[in-house]
């Protein structure tokens, strides 16, 4: 290790945050760019499966909640893109890297939202899993990322609550409604567990990320936390988690759960999930079709500046 690297690691070990202009190893910067941009893309792509249902929300109460949630996710994307930018990257390049497939986003958003109950399952499980991950990341070592997480966590709680409340209503509704809720859980349970990423034995970057305190817990630790929190919530709804191996281990106080289908996980990550193509197409078309707005606003701003000069 060079002297600069030693000083850097000593700062990390004392839990001193790293700020944009501080010296940092190239590999640390690269890891952050990859992780934060992936996180930003997930917020933005995550708007699509829910945006899909806004016009069909069954009541005004549900509609304003869903609208507000999706708007929050756009904000989360922005905080995170800003954080990536502090690392010296170009924002538009970062976005283009997602469109070209070079950068990834959370695989969960490559699953379709087929019924209104999915809006409940997404809020409860997908935002629930995101919260577990993001609460841990509030203590990440890079200042701008950590501050973005603090702000995001404050906003995230209502996302999960509105989803869970919606499911309580459906589970207390007609038989068909309860079946819809169960069906949503069946489809979203395993992909939600996959949100925490590959298992620790299969995650070669974890050790370094932990040493740099970019990550504070391993994927498997966070996944376990999520299962322990979520199982009793499913029981309260009267729904069955689609895992015959799920059982409480009285000794450890943790739930044991079945093997995750990693083949499916890597398949979806590598672009072959049910909606990968659709999601990327939606995002890159949005950029293409919206690019005139950028130019028009620039032209308008320039005109205003000229007017002021004359006056």
């Amino acid at each position, binding site marked *: 290790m060079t002297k600069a690297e030693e000083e850097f690691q000593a700062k990390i070990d004392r839990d001193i945050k790293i700020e944009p*202009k501080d010296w940092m190893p190239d590999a640390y910067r690269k890891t952050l760019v990859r992780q934060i941009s992936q996180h930003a893309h997930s917020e933005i792509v995550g708007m699509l499966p829910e945006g899909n249902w806004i016009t069909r929300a069954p009541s005004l109460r549900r509609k304003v909640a869903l609208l507000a949630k999706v*708007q*929050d996710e756009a904000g989360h994307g*922005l905080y995170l893109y*800003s954080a990536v*930018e502090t690392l010296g990257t170009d924002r538009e390049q970062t976005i283009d890297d997602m469109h070209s497939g070079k950068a990834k986003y959370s695989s969960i958003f490559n699953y379709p939202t087929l019924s209104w109950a999915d809006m409940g399952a997404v809020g409860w499980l997908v935002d629930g899993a995101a919260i577990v991950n993001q609460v841990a990341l509030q203590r990440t070592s890079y200042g701008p990322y950590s501050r973005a997480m603090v*702000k995001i966590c404050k906003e995230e709680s209502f996302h999960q609550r509105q989803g869970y409340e919606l499911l309580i209503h459906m589970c207390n509704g007609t038989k068909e409604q309860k079946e819809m809720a169960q069906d949503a859980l069946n489809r979203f349970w395993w992909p939600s567990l996959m949100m925490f990423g590959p298992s620790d034995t299969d995650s070669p970057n974890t050790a370094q990320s932990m040493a740099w305190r970019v990550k504070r817990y391993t994927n498997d630790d966070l996944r376990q936390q999520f299962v322990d929190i979520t199982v009793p919530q499913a029981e309260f709804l009267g729904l069955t988690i689609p895992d015959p191996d799920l059982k409480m281990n009285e000794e450890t106080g943790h739930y044991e759960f079945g093997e995750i289908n990693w083949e499916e996980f890597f398949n979806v990550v590598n672009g072959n999930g049910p909606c990968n193509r659709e999601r990327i197409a939606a995002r890159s078309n949005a950029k293409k079709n919206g690019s005139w707005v*950028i130019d028009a606003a620039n032209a308008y701003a320039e005109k205003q500046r000229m007017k002021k000069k004359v006056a």
Partner: protein
Amino acid sequence: MANENWPLWEVFIRSRQGLNHKHVGSLRAADQEMAIENARDVYTRRSEGVSIWVVLSANVHASNPSDKGPMFDPAEDKVYRHPTFYDIPDEIGHM
């Protein structure tokens, strides 16, 4: 597409009357009006603010982190700038 990127703005928010503006983040916008409107939408959706400042990031000049020592260490051994440095008898009470 060869869009010219909107410039980056730093956003400062006064959360309550009587408090100072505090840096909350940044965003991109074509001009100051748009920057303030976007800051309203992004940073004050839950009544977090009563006033917004936006400053072009390019206009922010910062001290150099590697000068941290020479810049800030000199203040550390000047204990006589703090009230606890001075001995005042107890019978005087709070001063």
